[in-house]
């Protein structure tokens, strides 16, 4: 099916913009629930060892404390194969900041106070927590994130480097960086013990992955878990995977059936529990012949992983497809440490890897005396150096040329550290960047057509379409863009219904709403309606949604003319990685 772009690519107001500006768009923590309990964790103060005793008596004695959960009394998980998710299952401590208990109380301040009163005694082992590339524990992972080869090599790069006219050999290091979106990771969890149903209002970039993980961790049926995330306040990749916080909140909810449990990580906890980008040590060597043609690239990376759960940032993969060379080697080695998990953060692999690779290219430009743009142009591959397949899109040379023109590149002083301005050296340089397009086949949407008898058919409108899909809008406007895609797929124009119906449709196309999670096979699961019917926790009645929009929602109205049968499917745009 080909879609004609009418709305796509045009500038549209954010669908949820007015709600966000008015502060009424509900983020995970803000969903109204009755008499919630608040969760505050106790975190380990050692990096490695085991808990020998937990004394929660002082915490439990505090007014308003309802329960203290520990590894001694928490619900047993059905699947403990993932050590990050095996929260409160054993006395083992694997990193400083690990959850070792959780306090449930009638108020967040009480929970926090009580958490300070939980006394944990440890048997401490020696730990290693800083990255050392000479560590004896250095190892090669089976693959690097998500499933790339750990090492690859073509030709004989060492021989080519030895024979090269020009060489650059450098080590680049990058620091550990933490994902810290404005909205921390938050959950409202409620467990209906009788019905065996779990409801999670969750700040997540992936409702389906969250549902699937929780389902298997707790041994629940696929229909037993609803994950709801209409708005997400940023994630930078850290909300793409389930982390221990979601498990802790669910364990807590199961300890108090029928009551909603609220948990928002503190900013301090964000640094411990939800992933970060590993620091990297990158050895890069480039060889070139007299005219600057690359004869060899080597990119050997050392980085860290949590000892208990491997994450191998694909740092060197950038060098596999960026520039043409007959001899190439890229490798990844990990040092396992007694630290929290490394995980996805904002272009894992490309962000640190392209930094090293591109700085090395600029250094080669200096060594060869070539313009760094010209150097890159001379090494532009005709096909992907890794796969041998043509690029779906690239345009790097045209991009560099255009950039050079706009920056008046030809007038620059090509010397590094060309001038000193108030104590700071200034100079010019070039960096390319590249990011792969990932498509995730199997995503589906459900579209319904709702006839509205109050509309005037003479004006061409007889109802509205409703689109449901399990996508996430982390604040980047996905809801609006997906609506545009859906509108074009349905062959209607957004805004066509402006000012028409007296009784406006409550909503237009609803992209990105996930009241009902979609399984990968496209079957809808979870409750049929909104929060009122979710789970057993008593939920306050949602506010009436009759409020008039001064300007009607532009999307979703007047779609009745489109000759598309209700229930037809459109495929969402290819989804990129985190």
């Amino acid at each position, binding site marked *: 099916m080909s879609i004609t772009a009418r709305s796509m690519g045009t500038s549209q107001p954010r669908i949820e913009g007015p709600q966000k500006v008015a502060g009424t768009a509900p983020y995970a923590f803000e969903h109204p629930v009755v008499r919630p309990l608040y969760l505050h964790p106790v975190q380990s103060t050692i990096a490695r060892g085991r808990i020998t005793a937990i004394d929660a008596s002082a915490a439990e004695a505090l007014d308003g404390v309802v329960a203290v959960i520990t590894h001694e009394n928490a619900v047993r998980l059905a699947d403990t194969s993932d050590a990050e998710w095996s929260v409160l299952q054993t006395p083992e401590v694997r990193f400083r900041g690990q959850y070792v208990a959780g306090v449930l109380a009638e108020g967040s301040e009480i929970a926090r106070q009580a958490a300070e009163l939980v006394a944990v005694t440890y048997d401490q082992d020696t730990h290693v927590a800083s990255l050392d590339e000479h560590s004896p524990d250095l190892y090669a992972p089976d693959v690097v994130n998500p499933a790339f080869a750990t090492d690859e090599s073509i030709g004989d790069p060492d021989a080519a480097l030895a024979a090269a006219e020009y060489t650059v050999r450098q080590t680049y290091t990058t620091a550990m960086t933490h994902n810290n979106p404005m909205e921390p990771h938050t959950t409202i969890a409620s467990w209906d013990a009788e019905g065996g149903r779990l409801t999670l209002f969750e700040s997540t970039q992936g409702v389906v992955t969250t549902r699937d993980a929780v389902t298997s961790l707790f041994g629940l049926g696929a229909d037993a878990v609803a994950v709801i995330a209409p708005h997400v306040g940023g994630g930078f990749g850290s909300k793409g995977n389930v982390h221990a916080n979601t498990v802790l909140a669910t364990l807590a909810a199961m300890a108090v059936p029928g009551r909603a449990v609220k948990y928002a990580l503190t900013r301090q906890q964000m640094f411990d529990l939800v992933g970060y980008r590993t620091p990297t040590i990158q050895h890069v060597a480039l060889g070139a012949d007299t005219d600057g043609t690359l004869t060899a690239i080597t990119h050997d990376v050392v980085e860290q992983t949590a000892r208990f759960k491997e994450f191998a940032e694909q740092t060197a993969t950038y060098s596999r497809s960026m520039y043409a060379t007959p001899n190439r080697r890229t490798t990844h080695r990990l040092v396992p440490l007694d630290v929290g998990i490394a995980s996805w953060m904002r272009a894992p692999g490309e962000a640190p890897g392209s930094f090293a690779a591109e700085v090395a290219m600029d250094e080669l430009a200096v060594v060869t005396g070539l313009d760094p743009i010209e150097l890159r142009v001379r090494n532009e591959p005709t096909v992907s150096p890794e796969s041998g397949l043509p690029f779906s899109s690239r345009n790097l040379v045209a991009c560099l040329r255009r950039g050079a023109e706009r920056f008046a590149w030809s007038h620059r002083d090509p010397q590094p550290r060309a001038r000193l301005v108030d*104590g700071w050296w200034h100079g010019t340089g070039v960096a390319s960047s590249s990011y792969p397009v990932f498509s995730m086949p199997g995503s589906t949407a459900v579209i319904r057509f709702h006839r509205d008898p109050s509309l005037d058919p003479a004006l061409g409108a007889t109802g509205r379409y409703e689109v449901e899909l399990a996508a996430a809008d982390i604040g980047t406007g996905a809801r609006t863009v997906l609506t545009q895609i859906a509108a074009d797929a349905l062959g209607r124009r957004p805004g066509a219904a402006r000012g028409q119906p007296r009784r406006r449709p409550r909503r237009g196309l609803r992209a990105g709403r996930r009241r009902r999670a979609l399984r990968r096979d496209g079957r809808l699961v979870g409750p049929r309606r909104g929060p009122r019917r979710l789970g057993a926790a008593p939920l306050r009645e949602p506010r009436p949604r009759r409020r008039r929009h001064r300007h009607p929602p532009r999307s979703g109205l007047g779609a009745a003319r489109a000759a598309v049968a209700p229930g037809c499917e459109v495929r969402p745009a290819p989804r990129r990685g985190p």
Partner: protein
Amino acid sequence: MRPFTYARVDDAAGAVASVTADPDAMFLAGGTNLVDHLKLGIAAASTLVDVTGLTSDRIEDLPGDDGQEGGLRIGAAVRNSDLAAHPRVRAEYPALAEALLQGASGQLRNMATTGGNLLQRTRCAYFQDRTTPCTKRSLDESCSALGGWARYHAIVGAAEDDEGLRRCIATHPSDMAVAMSMLDARVQVLGPEGERTIPIGEFYRLPGDDPTRDTVLRHGELITAVDLPPAPIATNSTYYKVRDRASYAFALVSVAAALEVDRPPDGPVVADVRIALGGVAHLPWRAFRAEEALRGRPATDENFRAAAEAELERARPVESPAGGNAFKIPLVAGTVTTALRRLTQDPSATDGVPGESA
């Protein structure tokens, strides 16, 4: 975090009486530091007495001597953002305006008060984390930064390991206080025994035998205002802050400096100079030795650098596998040199104005 009582009283004297009566009571103003400390369990007040509205939030001209222009009286409740924007501060004390604007964020500056800024506490990572020992939190504990992560820590003024002294290498975090130290500010205080004035040079204390105390304030004493004496030299002043991030970070090293230059034909000469350093000590560090070394000397980079190095002759940086702070000695020298070089440039010259680094 412990439960506490929140109290409002009618006037400053009432607030002083309330806090004096209870050894665990504290004053609450903007709350940008104290509220964090309550959450983190660093502060445990029984009662918070809100002083909002009880001290002046105005900046007033002080009468001068013999028809000269006087200085400024800054009410303790004046917000950092208002102080930075005040026309006389911008014109006559630019180092103070620059220091304020390089601290915190717009939102925090809108909340934080002048009095509270003076009393903010160190951002030492160990001090702020109750799971690590800290002698500033408890005299029963030792300093974790010694041998730990000491990048932001003191290189001068920390107590030796002598009998009775406890080593604390925390640094005072306030940018504003560094500028005020350079300006010889005077802190007006109301206490149970009445009013007193404390020169800022005597307001802060070195860790000595009690690192838990940052200032000489006694329990129940409330800052009501800060006076800036007239200081013609300060019209040519600046604040230069060096930090790991360009924004929203505390100083590794900062310099507040004011310079008066004579311009004989053979090159500019330092007529008078004032220098205060941030990020190097338990308190804003007034660099008297450097000032003395520079007066009457040619205003050259070499002399600026030598003066800064003289100031740090007794510096005692910390070596640590997790990140020491010996780098601060050359960093101070470079930062002082750059700040004074900027101030030496002839304002009447049209070229050679230094560009700001982003």
